[in-house]
């Protein structure tokens, strides 16, 4: 086990010795301590306790540190000695150290003790060891010298290995010496070298020579410098050299010798150039790339964006630097997250998704991104961006076009098959290429029977000649619209045909349409078609249709919709009055009569009508769009009326309801005092109420408009804040804040702003911003705080007043009590008696004064509502000057007044008199005696208030320290000038009673200024 340090502690104060022991224990020092404070004990302890170290307090009643050290010396003991002193007195410390102390510690710096203690003990141990070592030292020195020589050889070898050549130029004798490495570096043999420094300078590359000379010339002033330059070797190859050049100077400062080392740094230099070149390449790529390139650091801040990116995002480079990639990405885009995941996993990714421009618009982009480390090992990520909106649009266009094309083709097919005419194509030699199915009807041949057959085979023999002529004419580029010939049908009958034809040179096809000139088939088919169409239209029509015949309006036709509308069946043949008796009273018969008589169409939209269509007599409200269309017989007389009716009741009712609701809501919104603005997900304004626009006008002087980008409506500072807040709202937060506007229509206002997300199916699709004027509430709040703080202040004042009063009342009482108890002694001599009776009398007077002061103060405080009268400052000042003229004269005191700005006020005269009096007396009392005392009194008008300023050149006081104290009761700052410390307290109380306040500024030996504001 380790032995404890034996510590002898010379100390007479127990707490100090305990603290030393505590400090050592605290630091885990294992020790045994003996505390003594006398010389005898000390000598005894040195012999018997055998301490390893002595700690000694500087002075004890029976022993001091100097003596302790002397004893140690007498006994020829080498024990480490640490002085522990309570004051840092350098003289004492130096003398004790001189006497042989190893260290000293200041008592309140005891934390250093453990270290100093261990250190001193170890040092003492070493000292003992060193003595033994002296003999060995000489042998060691010899061996070191040997090593040194070897080391110098090794150094030479090493410099040869790294190719470091050494040369030397002796300025005095002009001799230039160079070692083998230098010659090797310059590619010359020792024989070729002529011993002149010019030899090497000639080898410097012509392009570098000027710089080389300049640097050498500049280097002459320095102790050491480095130059890097190119040389041309005898074999014409070019190398880079780096030379370190050192000057040695004589006592006069002249250069004696120049010593230098040279090293081939070609490889290094070439690498450096390569890096520079690659950097330039990269730079040029970055600047000129057609794709946008954006570099970001891991927290998302954009560090660079190339010109192409600036064009794509419509942002300047500066705007880029203010944004992060979160401003660029559209986090609502589902494709974004997989892209980011992949990039984080593999370090790179490519993808297509939406990006956001600065103005809030978005675009489709192809993005490739990679994470890389730059030359300084900082992680960055690159985004290469290509705007692909145009490409996607084109793709969609192609898709649309091809669908349209498909549809067109199908239409053509339909036309071909449903056409009553034969549509066909013929090739150059006159064979059918395609033919529509109408040929079966007209010619009785199926298309298959005709394809690849020559058309002339089917033409009537008499018409072949003119048909060939016509075909040649068409082929020469003259399209034909009407050409008639005859075709022989399968059954041998001839059919007259009307042709139209055109030659397409690129397809080498003739397009032909052939009509059956007899027309019979055509009409038959057309009639059937029309009939079907009418029937379908009549029954399938979404409208209700009916036909009324004759003047008594009998139902001739009625479709299902009509029957449903009126809620009746079996109406054909009955009159309108029989079927719908309720409509006559509503004026419908009259309308029908008018149509019948004039033959004019009657049309009405959303007309209100009541029909008993529920199977009973109850009328229900309907809204119908009507057309009453007369129809005529062969003589052109009106024979009846078609009724076309559309039931639009639902639509009308829904619209009315919506209109009512909107109007209600609108009226709520426009009559509320809260302003509302709604934003869509692009932060554009979609709606706002009247109040919002009023506010905007008041704050920014502009009107709100739908479709505006909301942040653009604000000033720059608010803009950034609003953007940030809106971003948070899109993340689902609700934001609420109180904002202060220094001036809205000339008034300071407080607004409570709230931003709520507008959610549709859990997606935030917009933001609702509301602002409420809470000025009144806020002012009440501020007023309440003001009242609370006033109350606290008053309470404080009262407590202070209480304290002062109790002290100042108690002080003379204590004195009286003390003096009286002495006077109670029977054996006092008359002189002492007289002395203490006098003391009692002084104290009684003081007590009386305090009570009178209190009375004055309480009088002011209780008589708050005194009669006010107009008081002229100049008269008031003159009155006071007159009343104390003698004192002023004796002191040579000057009072300057300037009451031009405002000459007087309505006030309580007595108070104002007291205020002026006290402040003038104050200046007089605390004047400086080495200077002519001057007090200037000035009045000023500040808004609705009046300021009276008393400024003197007197003693002054340290306002920084005493400002709080100056107006307090019984506070005085000057010892040698009589004063009770009540004047300024009364001034303050009176100023405050008049509803004003007083402030003071002062500097010692310069003067004091009191400013009263009423």
């Amino acid at each position, binding site marked *: 086990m380790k032995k404890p340090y034996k510590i002898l502690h010379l*100390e*007479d*104060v*127990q*707490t100090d*010795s*305990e603290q030393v*022991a505590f400090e050592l224990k605290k630091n885990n020092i294992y020790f*045994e*301590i*003996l*505390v*003594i*404070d006398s010389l005898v004990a000390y000598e005894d302890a040195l012999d018997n306790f055998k301490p390893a170290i002595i700690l000694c307090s500087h002075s004890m*009643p029976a022993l001091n540190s100097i003596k302790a050290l002397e004893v140690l010396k007498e006994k020829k003991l080498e024990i480490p000695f640490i002085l522990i002193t*309570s*004051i840092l007195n350098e003289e004492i410390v130096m003398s004790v150290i001189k006497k042989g102390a190893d260290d000293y510690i200041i*008592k*309140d710096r005891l934390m250093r003790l453990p270290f100093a203690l261990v250190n001193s003990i170890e040092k003492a141990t070493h000292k003992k060891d060193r003595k033994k070592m002296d003999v060995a030292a000489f042998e060691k020195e010899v061996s070191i010298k040997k090593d040194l020589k070897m080391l110098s050889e090794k150094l030479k070898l090493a410099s040869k290995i790294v190719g470091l050549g050494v040369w030397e130029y002796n300025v005095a004798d002009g001799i230039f010496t160079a070692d083998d490495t230098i010659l090797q570096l310059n590619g010359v043999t020792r024989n070729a070298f002529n011993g002149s420094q010019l030899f090497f300078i000639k080898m410097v590359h012509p392009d570098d020579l000027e710089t080389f000379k300049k640097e050498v010339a500049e280097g002459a002033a320095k102790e050491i410098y480095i130059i890097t330059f190119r040389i041309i070797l005898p074999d014409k190859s070019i190398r880079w050299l780096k030379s370190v050049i050192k000057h040695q100077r004589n006592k006069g400062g002249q250069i004696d010798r120049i010593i230098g080392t040279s090293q081939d740094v070609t490889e290094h230099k070439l690498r450096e150039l390569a890096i520079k070149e690659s950097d330039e390449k990269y730079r040029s790529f970055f600047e000129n790339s057609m794709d946008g390139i954006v570099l970001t650091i891991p927290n998302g801040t954009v560090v660079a964006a190339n010109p192409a990116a600036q064009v794509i995002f419509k942002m300047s480079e500066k705007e880029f630097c203010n944004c992060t990639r979160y401003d660029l990405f559209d986090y609502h885009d589902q494709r974004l997250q997989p892209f980011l995941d992949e990039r984080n996993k593999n370090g790179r990714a490519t993808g297509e998704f939406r990006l956001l421009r600065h103005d809030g618009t978005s675009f489709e982009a192809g993005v490739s991104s990679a994470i890389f480390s730059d030359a300084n090992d900082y992680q960055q990520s690159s985004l290469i961006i290509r705007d692909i909106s145009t490409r996607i649009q084109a793709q969609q266009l192609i898709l649309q076009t091809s669908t349209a094309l498909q549809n067109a083709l199908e239409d053509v097919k339909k036309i071909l098959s449903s056409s009553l005419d034969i549509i066909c194509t013929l090739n150059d030699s006159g064979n059918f290429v395609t033919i529509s199915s109408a040929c079966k009807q007209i010619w009785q041949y199926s298309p298959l029977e005709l394809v690849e057959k020559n058309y002339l085979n089917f033409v009537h023999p008499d018409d072949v000649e003119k048909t060939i002529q016509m075909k040649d004419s068409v082929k020469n580029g003259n399209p034909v619209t009407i050409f008639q010939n005859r075709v022989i049908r399968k059954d041998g009958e001839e059919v007259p045909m009307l042709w139209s034809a055109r030659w397409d040179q690129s397809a080498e096809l003739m397009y032909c349409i052939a009509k059956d000139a007899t027309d019979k088939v055509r009409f038959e088919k057309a009639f059937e078609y029309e009939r079907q169409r009418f029937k379908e239209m009549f029954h399938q029509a979404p409208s209700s249709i009916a036909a009324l015949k004759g003047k008594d309006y009998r139902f001739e036709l009625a479709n299902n919709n009509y029957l449903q509308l009126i809620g009746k069946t079996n109406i054909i043949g009955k009159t309108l009055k029989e079927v719908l008796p309720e409509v006559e009273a509503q004026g419908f018969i009259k309308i029908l009569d008018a149509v019948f008589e004039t033959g004019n169409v009657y049309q009405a939209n959303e007309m209100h009508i009541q029909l008993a269509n529920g199977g009973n007599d109850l009328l229900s409200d309907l809204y119908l769009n009507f057309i009453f269309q007369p129809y005529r017989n062969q003589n052109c007389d009106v024979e009846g009326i078609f009724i076309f009716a559309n039931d639009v009741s639902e639509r009308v009712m829904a619209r009315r309801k919506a209109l009512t609701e909107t109007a209600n809501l609108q009226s709520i919104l426009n009559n509320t005092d809260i302003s509302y603005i709604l934003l869509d997900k692009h932060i554009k304004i979609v709606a706002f109420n009247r109040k919002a626009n009023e506010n905007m006008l008041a704050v920014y002087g502009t009107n709100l408009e739908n479709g505006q980008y909301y942040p653009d409506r604000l000033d720059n500072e608010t803009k950034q804040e609003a953007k940030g807040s809106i971003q948070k709202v899109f993340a689902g937060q609700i934001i609420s804040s109180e904002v202060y506007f220094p001036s809205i229509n000339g008034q300071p206002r407080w607004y409570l702003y709230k931003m709520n997300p507008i959610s549709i199916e859990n997606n935030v699709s917009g933001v609702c911003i509301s602002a409420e004027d809470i000025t009144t509430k806020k002012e009440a709040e501020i007023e309440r705080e003001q009242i609370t703080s006033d109350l606290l202040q008053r309470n404080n004042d009262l407590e202070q007043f*209480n*304290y002062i009063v*109790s*002290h100042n009342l*108690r*002080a003379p*009482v*204590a*004195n009286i*009590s*003390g*003096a009286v*108890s*002495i006077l109670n002694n029977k054996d006092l001599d008359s002189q*002492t008696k007289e*002395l*203490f009776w006098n*003391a009692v009398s*002084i*104290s009684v007077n003081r007590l009386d004064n305090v009570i009178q002061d209190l009375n004055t103060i309480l009088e002011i405080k209780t008589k708050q509502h005194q009669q006010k009268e107009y008081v002229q400052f100049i008269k008031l000042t003159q009155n006071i000057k007159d009343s104390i003229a003698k004192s002023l004269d004796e002191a040579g005191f000057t009072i300057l007044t300037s009451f031009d700005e405002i000459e007087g006020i309505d006030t309580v005269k007595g108070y104002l008199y007291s205020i002026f009096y006290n402040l003038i007396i104050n200046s007089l009392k605390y004047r400086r005696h080495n200077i002519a005392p001057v007090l200037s009194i000035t009045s000023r008008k500040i808004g609705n208030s009046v300021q009276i300023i008393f400024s003197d050149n007197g003693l002054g006081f340290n306002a920084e320290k005493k400002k709080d104290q100056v107006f307090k009761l*019984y*506070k*005085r*700052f*000057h*010892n040698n000038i009589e004063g009770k*410390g009540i004047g300024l307290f009364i001034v303050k109380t009176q100023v405050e009673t008049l509803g004003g306040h007083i402030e003071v500024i002062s500097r010692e030996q310069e003067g004091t200024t009191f400013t009263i504001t009423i």
Partner: protein
Amino acid sequence: MLPFKKIIIIDDDKTVNLICSYIIKKHLPDVLFEAFTNPEEALKSIKQGIHNAAVTTVILLDINMPTLTGWEVLEHLRKMLPNFNEHFSVYMFSSSIYYRDREQSQANPLVTDFIDKPLTIDKLDRIIDAENSKRTAPTIAT
């Protein structure tokens, strides 16, 4: 034997000093007595008298004085003499019956006690007792 050899009183009220002077001289005739009405002068004198450090001194310190308060005097003493507690024992001495002054005295490690005016023989004995209990003998610790 008395645990102190000197009493200094710092109070701007001459009457107080007169009463103290009489009581101390009468009851502790061996003790040196010095009274100051100006605290700055008191500080100056204490600073010069520091070489006489072996003597323990009791200071009676008034709280309410125009140029420096008792607390400010105490602060000056602490800065002027880092270990002044070794040689000085301070008693706040006031006519104040304000509770905070008493509380503040108890809380301040540089203050031994609070004595209210006027000084009497009983109060003087209390100071002697307090000073006696402060002195202790050295011990050996391991």
